């Protein structure tokens, strides 16, 4: 088919086919990104404008002191994640990440269930000072400022 075309035309046909395929891939990617990207929530946002139950999102905040409980099966844990104003209950079955402790930051990947509990598939905690989930980095900074603001207001 292409053999019958002039040389100049074959190059043109190839360029057009390649462009169509690449633009197609780009459009496909763009629409998939809009649907499949998982959004980051802090507890306040999750309370005000919750994601649809079952939609994959990420929840970041501080593990509230005294909220960490292990269920009777020995592997399911529950805790509260808060941002100073609101807390969200989180359930997770699995082995906790190495530096997961009460009072420190965590990013939970998972879904909100119908009862308002966040069911986490995966927890990202601080690994060491060189490896902090990006959301946590800013958040601790933000929270530091908040604490400073509160103490100043109280004084």
């Amino acid at each position, binding site marked *: *088919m*292409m*053999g019958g*075309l002039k*040389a*100049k035309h*074959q*190059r043109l046909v*190839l360029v057009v*086919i*390649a462009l169509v*395929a*690449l633009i*197609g*891939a*780009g459009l*496909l*990617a*763009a629409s*998939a*990104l809009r649907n*499949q*990207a*998982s*959004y*980051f929530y802090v507890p306040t946002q999750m309370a005000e404008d919750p994601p649809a139950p079952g939609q*994959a999102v*990420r929840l970041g905040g501080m593990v509230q002191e005294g909220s960490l409980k*292990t269920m009777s*099966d*020995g*592997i399911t844990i529950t805790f509260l994640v808060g941002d100073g104003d609101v807390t969200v209950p989180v359930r997770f*079955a*699995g*082995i*906790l990440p*190495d*530096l997961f402790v009460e009072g420190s930051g965590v990013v939970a*990947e998972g879904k909100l269930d119908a009862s308002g509990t966040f069911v986490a598939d*995966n927890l990202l905690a601080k*690994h*060491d*000072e*060189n*490896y*902090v*989930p*990006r*959301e946590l*980095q800013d958040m601790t900074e933000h929270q530091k400022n908040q604490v400073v603001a509160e103490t100043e207001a109280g004084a």
Partner: protein
Amino acid sequence: MIAELGLAALWLAAALAALQLVAGAFAQRDGAAELAALARPAAIIQGLLAAFSFLMLLILFARTDLSVKLVAMNSHSAKPMIFKLSGAFGNHEGSMLLWITVMALAGALIAAVERRLPERTMMATLGAQAFVGLGFYAFLLFSSNPFERLPEPALEGMGLNPLLQDIGLVFHPPTLYVGYVGLSVAFSFAVGALLTRQVTPDFARAMRPWVLGAWIFLTLGITAGSYWAYYELGWGGWWFWDPVENASLMPWLAATALLHSASVLAARDALRAWTIMLGVVAFSMSMVGTFLVRSGILTSVHAFAVDPERGTFILILLSIYIGGALLLFGLRAGTVAEGERFSVTSREAALVFNNVMLSAILGIVLLGTLYPLVTEAFDVRVSVGPPYFNPVGAIFVVPMLIVMAVGPLLRWRQDSVARIRLPMVIAATATLAVLFLVMLTSDIGILPLLGLSLSFGLAIASFMPLRGRKLRMLPLATWGMVMAHFGIAVSLFGMACESAFSEETLAAVEIGDSAEVGPWSVALSEVRPTAGPNWTALEGRLMVSYDGGKPREIDPQSRNFWAPPQETTESALVTRWNGQLYAVIGREAGDGRWQLRLWWKPFVTLIWYGGVLIALGGVLALIGRLLNDLKRRSVKSRGAARREAQA
């Protein structure tokens, strides 16, 4: 003294790169023969100096010289020697020095052995290589000096991230870097050929071994990195679509496309502009990867330093090199004469199709990797993971795999489908048979199902090019292709099995009790403390038996490093021919029970064996090409000698 020697060598190497650039540029005019003669020696000495500088850094780390800032920040006297050495490139400055060393050595190697290119193209290539090198020397010397001294020597080093203290990490970074930076040669070749407008089959033949070499190392580096993440991170996954993984996958995709389009150019003198374009894109992807990983834009175990100044520096370098090369391409591509034509049913057409598919996959990975950065600029935080990459990627991977099965059977230029009907029917039958068999017997997702059935079809089809050929006469490069394509099928089979048939058990187990996962029974017999040179650990003693067979012991650990303080989980694995048992021990549940996480992953090891096969295929092809080249050279020189004798 050692540190000063290293720094001096680095400055000298940078000066030689400048000389090489000037010599290469002047060689483009007539009557500058003296200057042009300097380019090759400059490249070779520059390579040696950079290597010397890197050696000095290794010595500093071996001795744990705490008066050097980099050593004090990243090493510790109590570390085992091998991790002291690997610590030299387990940090930002050291890894950039490794980068520039590999780049300078690659340049030295071109200067020393490459004789095929026309002299002017060769000079332009060396000039381009030096031009890219200069930017990275500047980056190293002005913003990331690895040899900086401390005003007062530190008393003790701060240690290396324990996750990086692993034998896999001793080899993973250098291997990947040889791959990344080896692609700079393809970039320089492409720029050189654009400057002199010499895009010929000979040019493709000259470029091909260099691309093959870099591609082999990239393949091995990605395979090793994936296995490291699998057993060291303790999550049981082998690919996370982490931006850092994507940063290594993107150059690989581009290099794979380049390898195939260079073959078309070498054999058929077609796809000239496209091959040049891929040469530019491949190394650009390496640089984009470096930018993503090293700028601190992303946070991961690979992002050593968060320093906006460095990020800006790399971004500027990036835009100069990529922008400049693309501009040159835009200006010159039109003047590169069009190559030979071919029909729709020909090997060229199949290769073109897969080149486009590879480029589309590359685009999808690139968009998915950059998207979170773009939305962040608008203050929206998102993360992009498997729900995006897997299905969208598959839309292009599946047709690519189908054409990959058929393409090698087709002849160059023009062929008919009727001629290859038999092998096509055999491969298609195998694919469909597996598809229906699996669909009837088990309930697995659409992607693993497609992967599983295509892996059978592709495995059979990959050997079809051997049909009807005299095996002893077959060129090594063809064997290489067969092996690499078969490796893809093997790897695909492993991936599909892992995602379709893995079983997982999460249980809290008392000492003396046991848990089941797949065909395995796992009994916890003891949890005991243990210690290493720079860590202490709790070790679980597990007695595991497969299908009621003889039990054997494995010992997963939860380790506590004290410099820097950090916990890591050390998984324990049992490998059988048909899969792997993967065990991780967690915390005490509070009532004397211990958390165990167990996976049975059928055929998971094939993922990495496939990767090794792909790389071995590359090695075979490379040896074949080099032997051919040597033969041609000796024929040429004998011919020349004969002519001389006659005259």
